[in-house]
């Protein structure tokens, strides 16, 4: 282990070489234009280049790369969904995540901590069983555990039955993991750029030119670019881009807030979620408690913070861990999320022929980054939507065929 350190120190030059590309001049046309340089857009660019030989790609972002929800999420990765379509999709994501550091040559700090969804009621315990049964059927490691097991898995939890909402059990998902979210974006960026992909930061899309049901050009504040295919991957602003393309989405833009504590020595290993209390908490490698709750109660295109959020969140956290009362909150922030009626994303084709969509991620987008990038790349390159994505098609709403994820989605992350 020490060897890895030494080799880096001796081999590494003290004059570091640029690894993150500068924004180049815009060309007049690209084979593929990706709107949104977040994890999803960057991953799609990478897999288009790696798997489909398409490198004439511009990834556009109105801000800095990975600066939207990629930068703001709480970096939880899991596959313990309720519906078979959800479980299959996220299981593939987990598999890709596991090898991502090696694949990208960039340490995304993928750390399998185990994931506990606490149940405080009979109904929640039943839902936990439902998820566990579906997960196990599809080869995903999940099980219902009772307070005695919890005492072993997470001894710090307040397992007293003498509280208002005692913990009756939990869904335990050992592969549940956290990762360094920014590193995912940077790793994809560096490897995509190495293959010729261009990343244009501070480039705002202002319009989409259409002819004959196809997008012919993407207009930006740095000029117009002709395009073959277009992929939108912009959480928060999904509706605004779809408006430019001329179709409607079942999406509301809602802030989701999160916060971290000051760094502390290791206290908590697993990721803890309480559906009834609407909170989740994990401890990062730096020692900070990373915490979040449910999305804000009304829509907003803004990332303002509220005091109500930290007040109620800390109250709930202290129900689970009363000993954290003297731990201090250090920073709170918000992201803008796409909320859909069935708590499931929208991926695949749109009413516009050469325009593809990756949206509606609610509060679950980060954990889908690699699989979404890979499968959306496949969709864009071949024009065919792979089976794993079809349950999440936009047209499901027209067909009144919502994804049944609602039962497990009282708290998302």
């Amino acid at each position: 282990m020490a060897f890895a350190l030494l080799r880096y120190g001796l081999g590494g030059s003290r004059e570091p070489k640029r690894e993150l590309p500068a924004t180049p001049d815009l060309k007049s046309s690209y084979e593929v234009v990706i709107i949104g340089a977040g994890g999803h857009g960057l991953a799609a660019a990478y897999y288009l280049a790696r798997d489909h030989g398409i490198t004439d790609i511009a990834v556009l972002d109105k801000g800095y790369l990975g600066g939207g929800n990629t930068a703001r999420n709480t970096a939880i990765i899991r596959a313990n969904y309720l519906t078979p379509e959800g479980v299959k999709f996220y299981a593939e994501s987990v598999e890709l995540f596991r090898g991502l550091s090696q694949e990208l040559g960039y340490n995304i700090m993928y750390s399998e901590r185990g994931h506990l969804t606490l149940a405080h009621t009979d109904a929640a315990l039943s839902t936990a069983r439902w998820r566990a049964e579906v997960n196990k059927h599809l080869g995903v490691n999940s099980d219902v555990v009772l307070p005695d097991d919890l005492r072993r898995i997470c001894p710090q939890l307040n397992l007293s039955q003498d509280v208002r909402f005692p913990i009756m059990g939990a869904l335990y998902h050992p592969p549940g993991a956290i990762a360094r979210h920014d590193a995912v974006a940077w790793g994809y960026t560096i490897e995509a750029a190495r293959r010729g992909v261009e990343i244009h930061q501070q480039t705002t899309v202002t319009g989409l030119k259409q002819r004959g049901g196809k997008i012919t050009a993407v207009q930006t504040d740095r000029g117009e670019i002709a395009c073959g295919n277009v992929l939108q991957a912009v959480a928060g602003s999904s509706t605004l881009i779809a408006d430019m393309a001329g179709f409607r989405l079942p999406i509301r833009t809602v802030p989701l807030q999160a916060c971290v504590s000051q760094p502390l020595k290791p206290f908590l290993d697993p990721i803890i979620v309480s559906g009834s209390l609407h909170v989740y908490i994990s401890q990062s490698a730096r020692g900070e408690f990373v915490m979040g709750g449910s999305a804000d109660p009304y829509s907003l295109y803004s990332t303002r913070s509220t005091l109500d959020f930290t007040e109620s969140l800390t109250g709930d956290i202290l129900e689970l861990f009363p000993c954290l009362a003297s731990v201090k909150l250090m920073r709170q922030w918000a992201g803008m999320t796409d909320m859909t009626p069935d708590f499931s994303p929208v991926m695949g084709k749109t009413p516009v022929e050469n325009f593809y969509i990756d949206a509606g991620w609610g509060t679950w987008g980060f954990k889908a980054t690699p699989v979404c990038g890979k499968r959306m790349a496949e969709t864009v390159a071949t024009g065919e939507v792979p089976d794993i994505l079809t349950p999440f098609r936009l047209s499901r709403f027209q067909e009144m065929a919502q994804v049944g994820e609602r039962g497990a989605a009282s708290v998302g992350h």
Partner: protein
Amino acid sequence: MKIMDCPLNGPRNISEFACRGEVRTMPDPDTASDAQWADYLFMQTNPAGVAREWWIHLPSSYWFIAERDTRTGEILKTYPPDELFKRPNRPMSSK
């Protein structure tokens, strides 16, 4: 915390209120196509700008309409629903 000016109760903390989304007009359920009906159910305008929304003051269960700028969160105007919905107003079949 934001303040919402309730037409019935006056200015109160926004934590006393809940939002039920944009004010929308139900298409005639008898004549609307399946697609129009599904569009009504699921599709959202989700404007980045002024939205006209249903809000309720929870302790008094009073529904009203608020116009809100979704970019800034600024609440521009609140008023009772009868300014929009006059009797008879029956968004339903003529059968």
